[in-house]
């Protein structure tokens, strides 16, 4: 069975839910403290939270810890690396994904459900979605305002949309460039998403749309 590491830094707080969602998607999952090693795993997930209390910039300090060298190896070897919320912030700060996450346009913490349009179903994480499909997941962040100087060179995976899939200013919760909610690296094996798929992985939670992301990741790691 494939095994995923759920990487835990001081201040990470979505690790248990993420572990559970990966198991539900059919893989082994284990929480790994950042001082340990990632060897013997098939992929790594950086869950949400507030690593190092978001001091300096969200994700900045976690991104410079030694274990990130191992995460970089995973990325270079083409193995799956998924960053959710604070994990996304860490991946951009580490240079594994393009762009930066700035404080929300209206500087307050946002915690609510959003609609997303699937812009790219060609990554291992999004292969179980239809292109253009509208899905629902929650966001919970203070610094999710995605910025990149040249968006045409970025692999956009999810965009904030309205319920019909229209990419509008009103549907953009945080001011992200082009309503960007998730991006992948060129190869597609590294994904960063501000919306939380683990919080949409059970009907009890209000949506199972996020579970398909983990299922796609697990299926792909099996091959």
């Amino acid at each position, binding site marked *: 069975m494939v095994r995923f590491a759920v990487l835990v830094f001081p201040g990470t707080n979505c690790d248990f839910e993420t572990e559970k969602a990966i198991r539900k998607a059919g893989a082994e999952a284990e929480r790994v403290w950042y001082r340990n090693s990632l060897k013997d795993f098939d992929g790594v997930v950086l869950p949400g939270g507030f690593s190092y209390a978001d001091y*300096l*910039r969200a994700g*900045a*300090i976690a991104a*410079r810890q030694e274990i990130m060298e191992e995460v970089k190896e995973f990325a270079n070897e083409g193995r799956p690396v998924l960053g959710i919320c604070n994990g996304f912030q860490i991946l951009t*700060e580490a240079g594994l994904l393009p*762009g*930066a996450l*700035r*404080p*929300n*346009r*209206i*500087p307050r913490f946002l915690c609510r459900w959003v609609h997303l349009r699937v812009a790219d179903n060609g990554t291992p994480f999004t292969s179980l979605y239809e292109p253009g499909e509208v899905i629902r997941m929650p966001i919970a962040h203070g610094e999710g*305002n995605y*910025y*990149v*100087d040249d968006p045409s060179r970025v692999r956009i995976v999810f965009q904030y949309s309205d319920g019909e899939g229209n990419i509008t200013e009103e549907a953009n919760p945080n*001011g992200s460039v082009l309503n960007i909610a998730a991006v992948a690296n060129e190869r597609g094996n590294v994904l960063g998403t501000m919306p939380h798929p683990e919080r949409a992985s059970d009907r009890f939670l209000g949506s199972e749309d996020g579970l398909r992301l983990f299922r796609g990741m697990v299926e792909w790691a099996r091959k």
Partner: protein
Amino acid sequence: MKWRVNVTVRLKEGLNDPEGRVIGKALRNLGYAVENLRVPKYFEFELESESPEEEVEEMCRRLLANPLIHSWEYRIEPVS
């Protein structure tokens, strides 16, 4: 040799600074004709180094700033 270092990191021109906007608005509400308020980050520390300029520049690039969205400047003085 020991140095006293002051580093200022600010968002690049043209990038929206939400915190600055809110503080500027609060000052305007108090009756001051404030415009374009920005909130830079300021760091001060002492550094033992033979090549302080080089090291401080590197520190900014590697951690204190995000070169994609920030610019920075610093002042380095010997500790007497």
